[in-house]
Every structure is written in structure tokens, then in C-alpha cells.
């Protein structure tokens, strides 16, 4: 995908290299420091995620469990439950943040999130089919169905969006996603109403949780997430060009159609795999890119890097918080992200609006 890139020296002088794009660009090097700070915070939260829970575990035992295991009960708890859970949280959060940033750039809609392309509805419908008609009960089994469902729906949405007289535009894609999601949601609830046992399994999947998944789930989704992240990295540069408009981007040598298709494929891989593993978790993909742009400016490679790091940080913190707030029980991470992310989004957009008014 490297060939879709725009060479730096061909840019018109006014556009400038993406490195000088955003607010952070004026303080060169500072953005790397901020990213480092985010990563340090992520490590701290990860440590907390291993230590905090229904049974608190001392940091020394955690250290032993990872580097010098003796086989005690606490160490098994760490190795078999807490570590996979933490790993899944980081992977899922990073993937959702990245997918959200991609989605907002592709649709040029600051309120886009992966649910908008119908990816969540497709994955949900496929999981219902998996539970109801293929008799699958484990998360290992859901993964493939949810991925296939997400991919099929993303393809259908693209076909529908491109079918009309105007070709695929961001607005048409969003509309097509809504249409397909509405129909699929109706189908899903039809199955749920007729098959109570399906509904019983589904209601625990749809709330969104990273608890109770073993390490094999993480290993299953990682290849998809890696592929998605690589695709995202490949389209970062053409997306920079597309920010000045599609005609302008084409004039700069970016391949608009190829970029859009690769971007959508990356979103599908990232979201389909995550949704399969942890259920539909909203809001990480919607709120994180806004924060990422506030920290790192508008160049896409930075937005993507920050979005992944912040997404992982947000999801994992939400999970730790959910375990701590409701101890000894726990709140599912999907609920905590919504209750943290929604006010954050409202405050962020208000501040952005004020800043814009102050400038003009």
C-alpha cells in the first residue's frame, strides 16, 4: 500500500509537510514527549489492572508471577485471568481508538464511530446466528462469525453507498450504514424474541466486557488487529492529502478510491475482531480521536498513534475503574466507557467550539 502515499516534495508550498500541521507542530518534539507520557500512564494502568480486582494482589506477587513463577494460587490468578484480560483490554482499546480515527477521517464526519458503517450491527447479527443456529457458546467460536458478519456488512454498505448516481460519498456511506443497521437490528431482535436461550447468551455479550476471556481469544484476534493497524499506517499519508478535498488529493497524486477501500478494510478488520472478542463497546472510537487531535494536531500518523495509545488507556482505565467501583462485583467495561466517554465528548466539543469562536 506504500504506493498510495503522496511524496513530500510534490506538496504545494502552502500545504507544508504534515509534521508542521497541528498545534503541537509548532513545538516540535513536544508531541513525542506527550506520547511518551501517555504510554507511561498506560503502563501504570496496566499494572493496576493486574493488581486490582475481587482479590487484591500485592505488586511483589505480580512481579513474581510474571518473571519468577512459583505456582501459588495468586500467581495462577495473575497468569491465567488478569494478564490475558489486561492484554485484551490494551489490544481492544488501541484497535477501537484507531478504527474511530480512521472512520472519522474517511467519512469526514467528526461524529463518526465504527458503529456507523453497520459493522457492529453486522457482527451482532452474525453472533446471534452463531449462538442460535450453529450452537456456539464460546467466545473462541464467535470470533469468526462476528468477523465474517462485520466484513459482509461493510462490503454491502460500500456497494449500496456506491450504487446510486453520485457514487460513494461520505454522506451516502453513512446513510447506507444506517439503513443496513436498521434492517439487521430488526432481524437480530426477531431471533432474540423467538429464541430465549439465544437472548440469554446475547445479553451478556452485547453489554461489552473484557472479563472471562482466556488468552486464546487474544491470540486469535491479534493477527486481524495487526493487519488492520498496518493498513491504517499505509493510508495515513493519502488521508493527509484527502483532508484538502478529494479533487485536491487526486491532483496531489493520492489514489482516492484505493485509500477509501483500504481504510474501510482496516476499520472492518479492527472492529470486527474487537467486537467479536469483547462485544460492541461504543464511545472509545468516538471520543478518543478528538482528544488525539487536541494533543497531536491533525497529521494522520500522529492522530493514529495517539488514538491507539489513548484508546488503550481509556479502555483499560475504564475496566480497572469498573472493578474498583463495584467491588467485590464489577461493572462491565462497556458501561464505564459510555459513562466516562459521553461527558468527555460533550465537554470536548464545547471547548472546541469556544476556541473557534475566540479565534474568529
Amino acid at each position: 500500500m506504500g504506493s498510495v502515499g503522496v511524496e513530500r516534495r510534490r506538496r504545494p508550498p502552502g500545504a507544508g509537510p504534515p509534521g508542521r500541521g497541528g498545534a503541537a507542530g509548532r513545538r516540535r518534539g513536544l508531541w513525542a514527549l506527550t506520547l511518551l507520557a501517555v504510554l507511561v500512564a498506560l503502563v501504570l494502568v496496566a499494572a493496576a489492572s493486574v493488581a486490582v480486582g475481587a482479590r487484591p494482589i500485592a505488586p511483589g506477587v505480580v512481579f513474581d508471577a510474571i518473571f519468577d513463577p512459583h505456582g501459588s494460587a495468586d500467581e495462577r490468578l495473575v497468569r491465567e485471568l488478569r494478564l490475558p484480560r489486561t492484554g485484551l483490554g490494551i489490544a481492544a482499546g488501541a484497535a477501537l481508538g484507531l478504527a474511530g480515527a480512521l472512520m472519522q477521517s474517511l467519512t469526514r464526519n467528526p461524529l463518526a464511530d465504527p458503529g456507523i458503517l453497520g459493522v457492529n450491527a453486522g457482527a451482532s447479527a452474525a453472533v446471534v446466528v452463531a449462538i442460535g443456529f450453529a450452537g456456539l457458546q464460546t467466545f473462541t467460536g464467535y470470533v469468526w462469525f462476528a468477523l465474517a458478519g462485520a466484513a459482509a456488512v461493510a462490503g454491502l454498505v460500500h456497494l449500496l453507498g456506491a450504487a446510486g448516481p453520485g457514487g460513494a460519498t461520505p454522506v451516502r456511506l453513512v446513510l447506507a450504514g444506517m439503513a443496513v443497521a436498521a434492517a439487521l437490528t430488526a432481524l437480530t431482535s426477531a431471533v432474540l424474541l423467538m429464541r430465549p436461550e439465544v437472548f440469554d447468551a446475547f445479553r451478556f455479550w452485547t453489554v461489552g466486557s473484557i472479563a472471562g476471556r482466556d488468552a486464546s481469544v487474544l491470540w486469535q484476534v491479534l493477527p486481524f488487529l495487526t493487519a488492520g493497524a498496518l493498513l491504517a499506517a499505509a493510508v495515513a499519508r493519502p488521508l493527509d492529502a484527502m483532508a484538502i478535498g478529494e479533487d485536491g488529493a487526486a491532483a496531489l497524486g493520492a489514489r482516492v478510491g484505493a485509500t477509501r477501500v483500504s481504510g474501510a478494510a482496516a476499520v472492518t478488520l479492527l472492529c470486527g475482531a474487537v467486537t467479536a472478542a469483547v462485544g460492541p463497546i461504543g464511545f472509545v472510537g468516538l471520543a478518543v480521536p478528538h482528544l488525539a487531535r487536541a494533543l497531536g494536531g491533525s497529521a494522520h500518523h500522529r492522530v493514529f498513534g495517539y488514538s491507539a495509545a489513548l484508546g488503550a488507556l481509556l479502555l483499560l482505565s475504564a475496566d480497572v475503574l469498573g472493578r474498583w467501583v463495584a467491588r467485590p462485583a464489577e461493572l462491565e467495561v462497556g458501561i464505564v466507557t459510555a459513562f466516562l466517554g459521553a461527558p468527555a465528548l460533550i465537554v470536548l466539543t464545547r471547548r472546541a467550539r469556544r476556541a473557534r469562536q475566540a479565534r474568529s
Partner: protein
Amino acid sequence: MTTLPEPAPGLRRTRGSGGANPNPEPPGGGRRVRARMHVVRGPGGAGLVLRAARASLRVSPRGLAVCLALAAASAVTFAIGCATGDLPVPLGEVARVLVGGGDPGHRFIVMDLRVPRGLDGLLVGAALGVSGALFQSVTRNPLGSPDIVGFGNGAATGALLSLLWWRGGPLETSLAAFAGGAVTALIVQAVCRREGLQGNRLIVVGIGVSAMAYSFNAWLLTRARLEDAENAQLWLTGTLNGRGWEHVVPVAVSLAVLLPVAMAQSRRLGLLGLGDENARALGVSPTRTRALALVTAVALVGVATASAGPITFVALAAPQIARLLTRDPGPGVGASALTGALLLQAADVAAQWAVPAVEVPAGLATGLTGGAYLAWLLTRRRAHR
């Protein structure tokens, strides 16, 4: 169709053309009620303007024809709905029952079971259509619907709390749904009140609050016993099954109050389309108009949800279809009401007819057909923006 209330009686017919009033009325001249009707030509096609004393009513012939056709189609689907079911009643017998005759058994089935269900479908559909028209007009967003202020998920939260925690009956659940939706809408309005209820801000806040309610609902469902959760899921789908007169009356009364309010707002909302500055210059207060329209729309959708549960897609699709049919700019409150009524009633009848053995909830049918319709529309029409 934009209206001002009270077209005065005793219309005298004059004909003019070219948009200007051919012989302007001297202001305050005489006690006699002067009424005239003349033809204007505008971007929306030819229109008839009825004037009388201080009131005027602009009617587009196409809009009028569309409304009449929609009303006729609603009546036909209503009659079909009364005739179909587990025990088919011939249409002739339905007509006899409706005018007061007929076999007592048929009379019970039609008057106590099917007529209230059909009326509820028509009224709830109309309320949803009007509310969608107001929302789309206020937010200036063709995808505007009551869910933009988080109404749907808020109402669901209220209903779930009633069903799962207080074990409420149907009445408590309806009231709780209304309260939940109204409280959510109030929160959204309060958060963005300072910025004047503008489109984008409203949508952001609505999405946020709505998502919180949604995830809270999912959490409630996981904490409930399976039977209760299933019952709640059925409510969440939205259905007209088993609706009786006690469901019809509240919707009819609220519609009788709120529809004129919506009609009166319609013209001012149309003027807001010129931009806030121009509207203010014409004597329309943008903030007050938007707030009043939103309150009306929320009340309408609240009554509808309390009666039939959260029916998807009617509020979104009805105004769009109405506008396609009438080709009229502006909110089109009347046409949206009729389209909504027809949509919901037709979806309910079609669902009963397609799967006779199972009671398919109308909310499922509207979701499926609405999604398919929007997809079809996409392949046909060029996106405007």
C-alpha cells in the same frame, strides 16, 4: 402546507396570478370580513392562498391531493387491519359492524380488539410522523429524529426500570417510559440551552446522553432474571399487540391538543430556514420557536412510546416520504402525520399477514421495511450534500 390557524368563513373567490395580491386590501378598512383566494407561483409549484381578514392559509394543490390520497390509503389499510387476523371477518361485515350492526361475535372481535389496535396504530404513527418532521426541521438535519435528543433510549430506561425493578404493570410502564424519555430530553436541552439549541451541538449532546442510557439499559438487562429480561426485550421492540381503548384515548387526546400547536409552529420553523437573522427580522424568535417545537415533538413521541413502545424508523422516514410526495419545502406537518399513520398501520397489517401464526411486533416490521426503503432510496437518489 404552511398554515396559520383559523381560515375565516365565507371565502369569496377571486383569481389573480404572478404572486402579488392583485388588489391589496386597505389595512383596517371596514368591518366586513374580506376573504379572497388567489394563485401564487413559487419554487414549490403553484399554490392557492386563501386570505380572510387577518388570517391566511396557503395550500398547494399537489400537497392537498397527496394528503387526500394518504388519508384514503390509511382508511383502506385500517379496514384491512380490521378484517385480518386469526379469525377473518369479511370486509362487508366489518362495514356493518362499524355502522352499528353485524353479528355479536364479529362485533366483539372488531370493536373491542381490532378497531382499537388499528386506531392506536394510526394515531401513534401520526404522532411519530409529526414529531419527526419537527425534529428534522429544528435540527436542519434530514436524519433528525426524536432519538437525537436521546428520547428512545431514555424512554427505554424508564420502562426497563419499571418492568425489572418495580414490577410495574402496563400503565406504570407507559408512565415510566414517558417520564424517562422526557427527563432525558430535558437533560439534553438543559446542557445545550446556552448555545441556542442549534443543530450540531444538539446532536453531539444527544448522542452522548443517549449512549449513556443505552449502556445502562444493557446493564439492567444483564442483571435481571431471564423471564423478566425477555419481557422487557419484547417491550423494547415496540408492538401494537393487545392495544385496547385505554391505549387509544390518551394518544387521541394528546394529538388533539398537540397537532394544532405543531401546525402553528410549522410556518415559523419554515421561516427559520432563511437563517436566524432573517427570521428574527421577520418577527420570529429562533430560540423560542425551536424550544417550543422541541417540547411539542418530545411530548408527541412520549405519548406514542408510552402507547406502543419504541417504534423505530417511522419518525425518521415519514417526513422524508411526505416531502418527496408533496415536493413542498418546510416541515410539512400535516402530510407527515398522514404518512406516519399509513406507515405504521401498513407495517402492522403486513406483519400480521406475512407471519399469521406468530404475533410479529410492528416495531420489527418498521425496522426491516424502513431499512430496506432507505437502502432503495439510496440507489435511486443523488445525495444532496
